[in-house]
């Protein structure tokens, strides 16, 4: 409470609200009490700072209001920047020197490395190289023979089976039904080869020797059902 009263007195004194009598008395108190004197000095400084703060705050407000008002009226328009591009340019200008140093250092390292490799690698003479290429040739030939054997194994024709007849047929259903001539089927099984050369196992479902027609069905795990057969089949009596 005392603090507050003292502060009030000081503020009245500093703002000149005191009567001349009161002022003389207070100045006497100030002279005799250094603590109060110090408080007056301090408060004077504070009020000065407060006034500066107040003035500046008011100017700031005026500036802000004026700016917003003019901006709303379309006095200026912010420059639209292509931000990502802008960033890249910024990065480039910022790290230009770093890039240059890094690049030249990288080039230097590359040259040194190749020089070291050249220096350290053993030199080969002609005969050694010849031997090496011959060995590679032998390996290549072996591989070709093996590849050939592998192709033979892959065929779906049983090894001891004899191909007794052959003919052509066509797919009538995506499930793998094939129509062909009955006379081309001379056994109880069949191998179908599609247009791409893939071999598939097929079963004879029905064969009509009178009309010389037979129905085959592909039964093979490798058979991939097409989405549709590449031609249309219509119910119509043919007219020769």
């Amino acid at each position, binding site marked *: 409470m005392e603090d507050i009263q003292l502060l009030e007195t000081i503020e009245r004194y500093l703002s000149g609200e005191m009567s001349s009598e009161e002022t003389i008395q207070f100045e006497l108190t100030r002279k005799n009490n250094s603590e109060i004197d110090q408080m007056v000095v301090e408060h004077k400084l504070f009020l000065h*700072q407060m006034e500066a703060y107040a003035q500046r705050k008011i100017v700031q407000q005026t500036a802000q209001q004026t*700016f917003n008002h003019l901006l709303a009226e379309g006095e200026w328009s*912010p420059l639209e920047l292509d931000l990502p591009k802008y960033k890249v340019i910024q990065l480039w200008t910022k790290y230009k020197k770093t890039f240059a140093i890094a690049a030249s250092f990288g080039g230097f390292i590359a040259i040194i490395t190749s020089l070291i490799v050249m220096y350290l690698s053993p030199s080969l003479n002609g005969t050694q190289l010849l031997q090496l290429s011959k060995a590679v040739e032998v390996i290549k030939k072996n591989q070709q023979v093996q590849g050939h054997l592998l192709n033979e194994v892959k065929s779906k024709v049983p090894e001891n089976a004899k191909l007794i007849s052959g003919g052509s047929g066509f797919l009538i259903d995506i499930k793998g039904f094939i129509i062909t001539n009955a006379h081309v089927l001379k056994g109880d099984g069949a191998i179908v080869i599609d247009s791409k050369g893939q071999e598939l196992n097929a079963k004879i479902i029905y064969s009509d020797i009178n009309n010389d027609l037979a129905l085959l069905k592909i039964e093979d795990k490798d058979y991939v059902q097409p989405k549709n057969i590449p031609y249309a089949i219509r119910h119509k009596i043919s007219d020769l």
Partner: protein
Amino acid sequence: MIQISINTLKAELNEQALLKGLAQNDSKAVETLYKGHFAMIQHFVENNNGCFDDARDIFQEAMIALYEKVQLDSFVLTCQIKTYLFSICKHLWLKRLHQLGKYSSPLSTHEESISVETDMGIFEKKEAAFAIMDRALNSLGEPCKSLLEGYYINKKGMQELANQFGYTNADNTKNQKYKCLLRLKKLFFAQYNIGD
């Protein structure tokens, strides 16, 4: 010849009137300054790694610096307002770029500028004091902050403040104001050094 000198005189008088207006916080003067010079600063900042909002902040700060300078008793402006504002903005923007670590190449500009180092030194001190007061006021909390702002910034009377805040009378308001003031002074002087 005579015509030219009259025109220069006219322009000079205009500038003087403008500065007087700024010193009195006249919004017409502030508007004239914005209309006359902001576009130049916008152009400058946007061409030197900044955006529109940066230009807005920088220009406002420069205008306050000019205001502070006009307030001084020893005030003399030795160049055009345009040149002065631009020089301050350039100084402030360089500093900002430096703080952000963005500055690498010389600023691109064709505007002439003067050295504002001395003025800026004074301005920065004032700005520091302003920031301390601002922080102190903001950490007071309500209603202390608004009460003191009402009294010291908006210069309202005790009775008006009593009505605004709902105190029963002016004396109670005054008492409350001094309580708040004690707290504010403590906060302010904890950070403010007279020697600085």
